[in-house]
């Protein structure tokens, strides 16, 4: 178990290292980085001065080494726009994103899993058609359009909810729905198919043959086993949730990491972009590590493989 954890953490470090390297070189491959880092209307003299000060006149390997040694200490330099430490800026925004993400995750789970289970246990009935029809529709509706339409109905027409920003509980409603929509539909479809798979398994047949009540068969025997693919998807799709946060936060002016990243990209504020890439890839791989550890608990069969 310990060896497994160590190797997984090493893998996480590799992932983070490679994504940072890729972004670092992409920025430098596509033209003069100084021009990317600076506003358009700057004088040529100032450009050179900046280039010297930021160290862009050094050879590329030297720049890369400096970048890596800084990154290892969590130092990505100063945000060009805010004139503040890039990493601190990113970390300040992280809680807002995690709060929204967690709330959306809870919402997505509490809607999609019951729908998926009901569709499976009532296969071929109206419940199934409505549930799955909704899921297919939900999967096709782009989150940012849903966001605009919600703002139109609930803010512009009805004046029920604020259009954006962070404040009371009402600020959570629409961003939460939009972010949850990014994966509730897939979650519902997967829940249905994995519950259906399990319901056809022999141990469910045995449980029924024993004369157990249908409710107990489903809750005790089917659901725990059906949970494995659902947890896998939940882990894999956390990335989509982080990606969805970029869009959701932009629509609703939510002061989180996603919006900061988009603004940093628009402003060509690459120290902040690199710091955000760092935090996002660390978060994502750690969540997936957590999901893998959950398997051991859900499915004891994988424990031995992990130990081996």
């Amino acid at each position, binding site marked *: 178990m310990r060896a497994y954890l160590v190797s997984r953490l090493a893998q996480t470090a*590799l*992932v983070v290292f490679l994504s940072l390297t890729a972004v670092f070189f992409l920025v430098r491959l596509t033209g003069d980085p100084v021009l990317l880092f600076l506003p358009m209307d700057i004088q040529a003299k100032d450009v050179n001065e900046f280039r010297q000060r930021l160290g862009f006149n050094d050879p590329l390997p030297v720049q890369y080494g400096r970048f890596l040694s800084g990154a290892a200490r969590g130092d990505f330099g100063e945000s060009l726009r805010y004139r503040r430490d890039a990493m601190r800026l990113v970390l300040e925004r992280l809680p807002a994103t995690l709060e929204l993400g967690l709330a959306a995750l809870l919402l997505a789970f509490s809607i999609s899993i019951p729908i998926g289970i009901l569709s499976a246990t009532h296969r071929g009935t109206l419940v199934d058609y409505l549930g799955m029809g909704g899921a297919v529709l939900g999967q*096709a509706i*782009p989150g940012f359009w849903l966001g*605009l339409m919600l703002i139109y109905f609930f803010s512009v027409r009805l004046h029920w909810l604020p259009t954006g920003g962070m404040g009371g509980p009402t600020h959570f409603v629409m961003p939460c729905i939009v972010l949850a929509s990014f994966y509730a539909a897939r979650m519902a479809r997967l829940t249905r198919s994995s519950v259906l798979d399990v319901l056809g398994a022999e141990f469910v047949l045995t449980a029924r043959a024993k004369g157990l009540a249908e409710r107990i068969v489903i809750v005790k025997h089917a659901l725990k086993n059906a949970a494995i693919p659902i947890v896998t998807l939940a882990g894999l799709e956390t990335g989509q949730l982080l990606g969805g946060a970029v*869009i959701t936060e932009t629509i609703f002016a939510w002061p989180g990491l996603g919006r900061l990243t988009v603004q940093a990209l628009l402003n060509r504020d690459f120290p902040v972009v690199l710091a955000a890439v760092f935090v996002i890839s660390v978060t994502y791989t750690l969540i997936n590590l957590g999901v893998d550890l959950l398997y051991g608990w859900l499915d004891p069969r994988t424990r031995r493989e992990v130990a081996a």
Partner: protein
Amino acid sequence: MKAAAIRRNGLGLLGLVLAAAAVLAALAAPILAPHNPFIGDMTQGLRPPGTPGHPLGTDQLGRDTLSRVLYGARVALFIGLCTVLVTAIVGGLLGLLAGFFGGWSGQVLMRLCDVQLSFPFILLALTINAIVGLGLRNIIISLSAAGWVVYARVVRGEVLSVKQRDFVQAAAALGTSRARILFRHILPNVAPSIIIVASLQFSQFIVAEAAISFLGFGVQPPTPAWGSMLSESRDFLYVAWWLAAFPGAALALTALGVNLVGDWLRDVLDPKFQV
């Protein structure tokens, strides 16, 4: 079982109709569109749907919404098609080679895929797009660079299992050249997976392009792309709901159609397939 089959076919048919409508809109936009999508009459700005001559209303510059939505189908499908082709060819070829020859280069490729998959797709495409620049060509490059890994992984996995089958072993024993084995014996058996992935990726690419353009990157105004139209519509949400409603509805219906066709294709070609 039969009811399920009919439901599947029915949904597949609905998908085909929606997708065909989008293709028709894209191909026949110059014929179907009542106005020039780029030029508007400033005196006719922000007219609501139902205005004579403008069934879906006009935008802030007096441009006809219907015409822009129709031309938007062109942009969306063109980008989707190009990206799917590029990713299928690049990712598919890399997957074929990695699966067939194996070895350390295959391992390296798969680790690279792992790294790339450890980053949210839309954020990856967005970051690449912000770096390589705006415009139609660059959005295709960005989406392709972010999207090829899915093919590489799926195809490699399939090749690894097809490679072990008797007919491949037999062909090898007969002294068939490796290139011929790869393209005549293995590729046709992997092709269904490539088609399924392509159909499932297609709508993802269209929606991702719209999202990226919505955020201010990708396709720029005045090009009538659904994403950039939605982006512009945000400033007029209080006075002109139709500017947000119609491009988004067109995008959602196209994505729905393509998704349904993709699901149906998967059921027909390989019901056990999981991406």
